[in-house]
């Protein structure tokens, strides 16, 4: 019975009616009960855990009593109407304080208030100060009907309240959404970048003021017009690409971030922008959000910086030419016999001249890569002969450090379509690195295999390996495992960064494996074939190709220096 009492209390609480103010419908019902059943008192009593609480009441001044003395507590124990014609004659109520004292109840009739699940949560009851024996079936019928009416009113009341609550919550959330969208709108209107929302049809659905200003339009005139009007060619390509190959579900960003292209203003002038496109798929409107930034100023600064670096680098070469040339002549002995001690000093000067030249060359390369200006002059390159040549070039430096260069047997028909000089540059860098980081008397192995992308060239040393904390930064510019290395090993810290860019420009990949105390293998893969697969060919420049043969015949020093950075050390 305990369980059903707790269920009953739960059912009662569900009506959310306890301790609420009087309501007309219930007041009307108790008034109707007093009239139809000709009783001075009528009550809608809800039996709580410790008390009975009156939602409506006629003829009594209290609004609750303790449950112990409540007649209604008896009424809810049965399904039928409890009729007590004379409380003084009833053993259950004879000693009840409400009978012995005020208000001196004599007659009671209570109909249980039953929920649809059968829980009796209270009563509608009528009470009299005198005993009554006239409460017949007709009266029982009336009080039962009134009790049902009370329950209906309670049910309707709670449903109405819940509905209103839901409505008010909905209004609140709509208001919150409106505020949020106002806020978003403000953010979009305030940002200095241009924001364009483009529909599936490629037409402009919305723009922010920054965008209008950037392109020289005003007053919403852009809406409905084709987006390719602003970003000619590129946008059409970008748009087609995204429609053809939509990113996988859940992908947050779609377009490549920060693409630099030319855009067109309303007056027809062109200017450089950086833009990124994201597809809206989760929202009700599908389309594309494009963020556009005017980079005219940045481009000017970039160009100035580029020119400055280029000028400084070239200006440095002229005095270096004099220094290096003079030292070279002295060292060769044509100017006279050199004392042994001077000879060593001249070697130091000569080596550091070469080092300065390498640094300048590397800085120029990095500058070209940053500016996207590094041209790849592709031709058919036989990898076997390239490997042999690079080993021949690197041998002098390897001999100095007592390192043996070993080339594994390679297929002499391995041909790639690539820039021979640039590949030599990469190989020279990898080999000189491997030599640098080998233990004296060690071996550096160079091999050629098939890889995932095409041919794979590996250069392996058996040195100390790359420290774990440095591995993430191997390809960063000016990266050196520790500062003291620069002096000892004489690198610029730019070589691997340049090598990676060169290989990537060929559509390949450069990576490494390393183990502490066991050594390191750097390897690059490069697509094979003659470029008709669109990979290597895509980077073939339109302008004149200067082959290595031409360079060699001219015996131009810097490229040879770069290809053989180790010989002069």
């Amino acid at each position, binding site marked *: 019975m305990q369980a059903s009492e707790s269920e009953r209390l739960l059912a009662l609480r569900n009506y959310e009616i306890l301790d609420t103010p009087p309501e007309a419908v219930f007041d009307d019902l108790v008034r109707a009960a007093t009239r139809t059943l000709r009783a001075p008192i009528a009550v809608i009593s809800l039996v709580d855990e410790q008390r009975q609480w009156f939602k409506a009441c006629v003829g009594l001044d209290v609004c609750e009593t303790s449950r112990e003395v409540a007649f209604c507590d008896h009424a809810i124990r049965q399904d039928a109407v409890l009729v007590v014609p004379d409380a003084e004659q009833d053993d259950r109520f004879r000693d009840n304080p409400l009978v012995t004292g005020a208000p001196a109840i004599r007659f009671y009739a209570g109909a249980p208030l039953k929920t649809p699940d059968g829980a009796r949560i209270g009563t509608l009851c009528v009470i009299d100060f005198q005993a009554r024996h006239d409460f017949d079936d007709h009266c029982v019928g009336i009080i039962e009907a009134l009790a049902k009416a009370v329950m209906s009113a309670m049910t309707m009341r709670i449903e109405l309240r819940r509905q209103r609550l839901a409505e008010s919550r909905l209004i609140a959330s709509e208001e919150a959404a409106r505020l949020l969208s106002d806020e978003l709108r403000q953010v979009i209107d305030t940002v200095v970048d241009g924001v364009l929302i483009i529909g599936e049809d490629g037409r402009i659905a919305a723009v922010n003021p920054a965008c209008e200003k950037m392109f020289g339009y005003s007053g919403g005139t852009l809406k409905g017009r084709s987006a390719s009007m602003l970003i000619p060619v590129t946008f059409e390509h970008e748009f087609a690409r995204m429609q053809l190959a939509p990113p996988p579900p859940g992908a947050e960003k779609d377009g490549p971030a920060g693409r630099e292209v030319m855009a067109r203003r309303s007056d027809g002038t062109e200017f450089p922008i950086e833009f990124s496109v994201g597809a809206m798929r989760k929202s009700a409107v599908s389309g594309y959000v494009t963020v556009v930034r005017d980079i005219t100023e940045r481009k000017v600064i970039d160009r100035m910086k580029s020119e400055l670096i280029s000028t400084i680098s070239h200006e440095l*070469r002229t005095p270096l030419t004099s220094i290096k040339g003079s030292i070279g002549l002295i060292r060769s002995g044509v100017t006279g016999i050199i004392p042994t001690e001077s000879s060593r000093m001249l070697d130091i000067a000569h080596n550091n001249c070469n080092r300065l030249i390498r640094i300048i060359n590397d800085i120029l390369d990095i500058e070209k890569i940053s500016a996207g200006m590094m041209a790849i002059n592709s031709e058919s390159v036989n990898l076997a002969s390239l490997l042999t040549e690079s080993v021949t070039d690197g041998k002098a430096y390897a001999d100095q450090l007592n390192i043996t260069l070993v080339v594994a047997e390679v297929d002499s028909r391995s041909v790639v379509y690539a820039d021979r000089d640039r590949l030599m540059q990469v190989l020279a860098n990898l080999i000189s690195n491997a030599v640098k980081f080998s233990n004296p008397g060690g071996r550096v192995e160079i091999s050629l295999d098939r890889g995932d992308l095409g041919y794979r060239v590996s250069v392996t040393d058996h040195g100390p390996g790359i420290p774990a904390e440095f591995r993430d930064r191997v390809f960063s510019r000016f990266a050196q495992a520790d500062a003291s290395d620069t002096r000892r090993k004489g690198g610029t810290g730019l070589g691997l960064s340049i090598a990676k860019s060169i290989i990537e420009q060929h559509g390949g990949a450069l990576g490494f494996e390393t183990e502490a105390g066991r050594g390191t293998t750097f390897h690059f893969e490069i697509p094979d074939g003659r470029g008709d697969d669109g990979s290597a060919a895509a980077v073939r420049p339109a302008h004149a190709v200067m082959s290595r043969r031409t360079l060699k015949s*001219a015996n131009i*020093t810097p490229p040879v220096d770069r290809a053989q950075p180790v010989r002069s050390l």
Partner: protein
Amino acid sequence: MSRVRLLHVDDDSDILELVTYSIRLDPLFEVRCAASGAAALACLGAFTPDVILLDVMMPSMDGRQTLEAIRQLPEHVATPVIFLTARAFREDNARLIALGAKGVITKPFDPMTLARDIRKILAD
């Protein structure tokens, strides 16, 4: 081995001296120097070189303009010109060749092989 008369044009006097010294390691070279494009043009009246070694970046009249002016002289329409440049980019070299130069040598050059390098370009 034949005799080669060479005119070297460079605004940097140290480079002029160094190049002269280097080239004279080959006794069959006869070297004349000019410190500017204008000086080179003036020199061409009295001296008929077999090859002109021309610096690119010079004040007032740069190497390109000098080459253009040389080509205006009927007797030097075909005189081989080799640029000696401090710009190391291959693209620059290709552009210089396209201007009508016979070859390009970049700074820093190897003084011990300079004469040989020039002979090699002339033989091509």
